[in-house]
């Protein structure tokens, strides 16, 4: 394409991606921490800064593109996945990041969300899940726990919430991870993993809305309770958690079960060993569905399987057609098939 200059990526720093625009999220909002993590990750990826495109829909999270010094589109409500698909298909060289929230992604944008996953375009999606509508000031969202009192559910919601991980895996997503906005180190690591995954990667960031849903994730972020209510998944390691590292997850029949190591003769060998690369979704689906207080909330990479991407398949088809078609240009096409001449 004209106007483009391809250079070797220089060593980039966080400053290369910091925008000159004032960040207008509320003080104390979890979004700030996510932004800082992304700013840290981008320079580490070895991608020229001109090749990043950040795409969003509508919502607090969706202001994100304005706060990154990259190419970016702040789209319309719910449609970020479709816009990002158009960007990626149009130029597969670009590193495409989609920023979305629980409403934007799973309510108004639900349709695009499941389809981008099943197509497996190489897009990185960061889903900020604060379980509330923030920009419209406090209505329940598709992830708000049942019974929650919000501005549109004064007697408590009567809707069953979505669990994003279950949706991702159900829609044949190839990468799903979950992190907390209170753990910047883990966010940075997981965002790197997501960026390296070839295919649609979805990272659910459990994020706190300090104004409309403050402490919604308290049980899993509060120092006093978090260790007993979260489990940090590590590939190839038995699933152990708890303040004293004395609890574990095992498969009992068709269901998961929390067990205490040392009780009833249970040892590490009885526990599930985490395998995000397994193509079978069964166990991963169960892990994604674990909800406190009955189970610890699983954090880290839950699923990460290899599968060819949409854009690779498309480019292959185009290359094949270019090679084999006898029609090389429009003059050829216009004169193909049944034509007749008038002298």
């Amino acid at each position: 394409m004209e106007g483009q200059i391809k250079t070797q990526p220089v060593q980039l720093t966080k400053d290369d991606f910091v925008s000159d625009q004032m960040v207008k999220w509320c003080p104390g909002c979890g979004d700030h921490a996510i932004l800082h993590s992304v700013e840290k990750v981008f320079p580490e990826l070895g991608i020229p800064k001109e090749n990043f495109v950040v795409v969003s829909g509508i919502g607090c999270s969706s202001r994100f593109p304005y706060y990154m010094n990259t190419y970016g589109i702040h789209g319309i409500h719910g449609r970020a996945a479709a816009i990002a698909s158009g960007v990626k298909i149009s130029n597969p060289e670009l590193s495409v990041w989609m920023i979305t929230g629980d409403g934007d992604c799973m309510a108004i944008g639900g349709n695009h969300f499941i389809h981008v996953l099943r197509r497996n375009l190489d897009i990185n999606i960061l889903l900020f899940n604060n379980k509330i509508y923030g920009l419209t000031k406090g209505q329940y969202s598709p992830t708000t726990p049942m019974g929650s009192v919000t501005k549109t559910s004064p007697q408590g919601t009567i809707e069953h919430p979505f669990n994003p991980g279950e949706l991702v895996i159900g829609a044949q997503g190839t990468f799903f991870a979950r992190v907390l906005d209170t753990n910047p180190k883990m966010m940075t690591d997981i965002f790197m993993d997501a960026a390296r995954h070839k295919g649609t990667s979805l990272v659910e960031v459990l994020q706190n809305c300090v104004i409309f849903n403050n402490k919604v994730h308290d049980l899993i972020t509060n120092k006093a309770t978090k260790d007993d209510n979260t489990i940090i998944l590590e590939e190839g390691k038995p699933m152990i958690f708890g303040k004293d590292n004395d609890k574990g997850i095992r498969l009992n029949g068709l269901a998961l079960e929390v067990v205490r190591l040392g009780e009833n003769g249970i040892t590490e060998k009885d526990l599930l060993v985490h395998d995000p690369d397994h193509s079978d979704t069964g166990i991963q689906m169960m892990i994604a569905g674990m909800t406190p207080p009955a189970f610890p909330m699983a954090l880290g990479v839950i699923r990460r399987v290899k599968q060819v991407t949409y854009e690779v398949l498309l480019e292959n088809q185009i290359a094949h057609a270019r090679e084999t078609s006898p029609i090389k240009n429009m003059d050829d096409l216009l004169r193909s098939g049944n034509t007749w001449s008038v002298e």
Partner: protein
Amino acid sequence: MLSKLPPECRIGQRKLYYPYLCRNSNPEEMGQRPGQVIELEDVVIRFAGDSGDGMQLTGSLFSDAAAQEGNVFATFPDYPAEIRAPQGTVAGVSGYQVHIGSKPIHTSGDLADVLVAMNPASLKSNLKWTKKGGIIIVDTDAFNDKGFERAGYAKDPLESGELDGYRVIRAPITNLVRESVKDLGVDHKVAGKSRNMFALGMLYYLFNINMETTMSFFEKKFRSNPLIVEANRRVLTAGYDYADTIEVISNTFNVAPAPLNTGTYRNLTGNQATAWGFMAAAEKAGRQIFLGSYPITPATEILQELSYHKQFGVKVFQAEDEIAGITSAIGASYTGSIAVTTTSGPGLSLKSEAIGLAVMTELPLVIVDVQRGGPSTGLPTKSEQSDLLQALYGRNGEAPVIIIAAQSSGDCFYAAFEATKLSLEHMTPVILLTDGYLANGSEMFRIPSMKDMPAIHPPIAQANDPDYKPYLRDEEKLRRQWAVPGTEGLRHRVGGLEKWDITGHVSHDPLNHQRMCELREEKVNRVANFIPKQEVVGPEENDLLVVSWGGTRGVILEAVQQMQAEGKKVSMMHLRHIYPLPLNVEEILGRYKKIIVCELNLGQLVKYLKINFPQYKYHQLNKIQGLPFMVKELVDACNALLED
């Protein structure tokens, strides 16, 4: 055309009449000379059968063969909304009308001179589209009690007298087809599928058309199955020979070659032409096409056609819905592709918000609306011009877009090309309006040479341009530059929030908002400086000006020319550019004593003209039946005004 009934002749117990299809012949003289080849200026043939009977194919084979004889043609399929409604019912009848001529023709014709009715239901639903005195060819094997019952006939229409005044050719087609292929060992099902070819053979005899074009089609189409090629050849020939042998056809017809501009021609449907127009524009602009689209009648064929041309690097994204269709296209446009989305009226409604995003981000995007009957699901397979106001105003906020309306099936090629050119060069969305009639209809298309198509120069921002600002505009067109991701030194953000002038940062400033709204409107208004001046058919001053737009051009031209030939003081102004209007439209409107605006809606263009040019009085002719205008309707309406 058929003012006099000819002398009758008797076949069995039935009264039949010689047909008189020619405009300028003497019926009595012609009718008395059996075996004569009668010269016709033009003829309209309507093929009708069950939706699985292959009527669309039959019709297009006929038009291709006639074209090889040097005739001009226009076609129109009339198909049911149901893919395969119950066999033999009126709901399942599929039709295909072909108009061939020895002089320029502009429509697929009003009423048919010849109706081919493969079963009672197709007779029932198509008799009203057949001229009194015309030829009706029926497969008598399908005219049985079961067929009558399914079609809702109380008794045999061939015997009830309701076809008195038509010339009915009764052919036991089903049995003759079986007979002609029986030694080939093909089963009845396969034989049944080639009934249409028997009827086609009869027509080739009747109109003195060479069968070779169709024969070679068989060879290409069924290359892998020589048995099917042979079966079709035999059935086609059997139909031809049958028509030659039976005595009811005592004369045949000939439509002389039309005087045509030299060049190479092909058959092209409107939807195909639209797809090709985009590819031509992409070649000229040197950029890849991205189509984001969701199937919808009657626009789907554009999506299908573009899917077949990956050799040009066309990227077709069949989206999960209409909204994803357009928003993916906006993403692709930002990324430097020629972005297109295709739809019909209901889909345009769904895309409204996203069109606003393209207006705000000032990105090039072509939205094709192949109009159909509305509102809501309406008449999906029927044509209408009722999305004009939606195209003009159907968005939140001040969101002007360029609107172009294609005026014939072949013009869809040029309209798609021009829509792309204007969109890219003015950095703004364009809505291209076509309609079901243009989309599915086809006509002879004179093949252009790509070197004669205009160049396309989008304003690509150059890498590391120190003066680059996302919303900095040029003086002439007020367009901003197109800075494509991947380009060094041009990182910037766009989005749906209002932009600061020049910098493109988010702004809620009151005066800036007014300025930006005015700039976006003025940018589109200035496109008027880059489109051709409006033309008028007929004298520049006159008693009556017929005003029309889009897909009705052919029939209106035919009506106006007919009136002009009769000495009527009528001129015609057909609009192709709707927004902005050509600069001379206002002045043209002032030169006529009366103005009549003819539209296939309840009066949408006329409302638009009243807003823009309230100083004039407008009469209206509005038809909203899912059907095209007929020449007679237009002539009657104009005559009434002229005599008033």
